[in-house]
């Protein structure tokens, strides 16, 4: 995963420094931890076949493709609708 476009998690502790890849789920944003020398895309359900993003183990992220960008648009639309209903 080194050299790719995903996040990284660096832990400094009593046992030294551990660095691991930590991509965020393309559907829910959950940060995943990936063991060294493992490719998260090789895991079962590791990559969404529709949006091609890496996805986490959460079953709801596997049921359908619901990318974060679509979620943000939906949340913003819902908030505007609620606001307009409250203002009459």
């Amino acid at each position, binding site marked *: 995963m080194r050299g790719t*476009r995903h996040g*990284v998690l660096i832990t400094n*502790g009593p046992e030294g420094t551990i660095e691991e890849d930590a*991509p965020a789920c393309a559907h829910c*944003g*959950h*940060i995943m931890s990936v063991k060294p020398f493992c490719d998260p895309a090789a895991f079962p359900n590791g990559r969404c076949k529709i949006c091609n993003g890496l996805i986490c183990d959460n079953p709801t992220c596997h049921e359908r493709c619901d990318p974060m960008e679509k979620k*943000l648009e939906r*949340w*913003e639309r819902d908030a505007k609708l609620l606001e307009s209903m409250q203002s009459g």
Partner: protein
Amino acid sequence: MAKYEVNNRLAGTQQNISTTFGATSVAVGINATTAALCRGRLVEFAFGADGAPNASDTQIVYDVSRMTAAGTATAATPLAQDTLSSACQTSAFVNYTAAPTVTAASSLKTFALNQRATQRWVAGPDDKLSWPATAASGLVFRALSPVYAAPVLFHVTFEE
């Protein structure tokens, strides 16, 4: 995109964490505000204990979740990485004394670390964590520990 930095040493008084995600568990919160709604993206965050370690070896549980309503905290002015950037439109609050409303089951990551450990997450270009441009929506950074009862430090970098 302008990048901004905030941490819970910028303003207010650091609060001791407790055994639950309670009133003083939230160290930093960043959220959109009604006056200037805009989306934000989390670029990086680092965290660790900010007090003397407890004599008993113990863990601290750190958590990043989504929030939907403000709590009671000290406002902090996010610092622009680039001094040419305009003032930050996202609100930042630190050292909460009453926790904001956190969306149930919205944890983006929970880390259990030894009290002597620190951790840092840096987003890649493809996986910056976004929050919507709706009032009081954003992210909270909080911690708990069964034994360690001193402050923690969260340093957060985001862009808008």
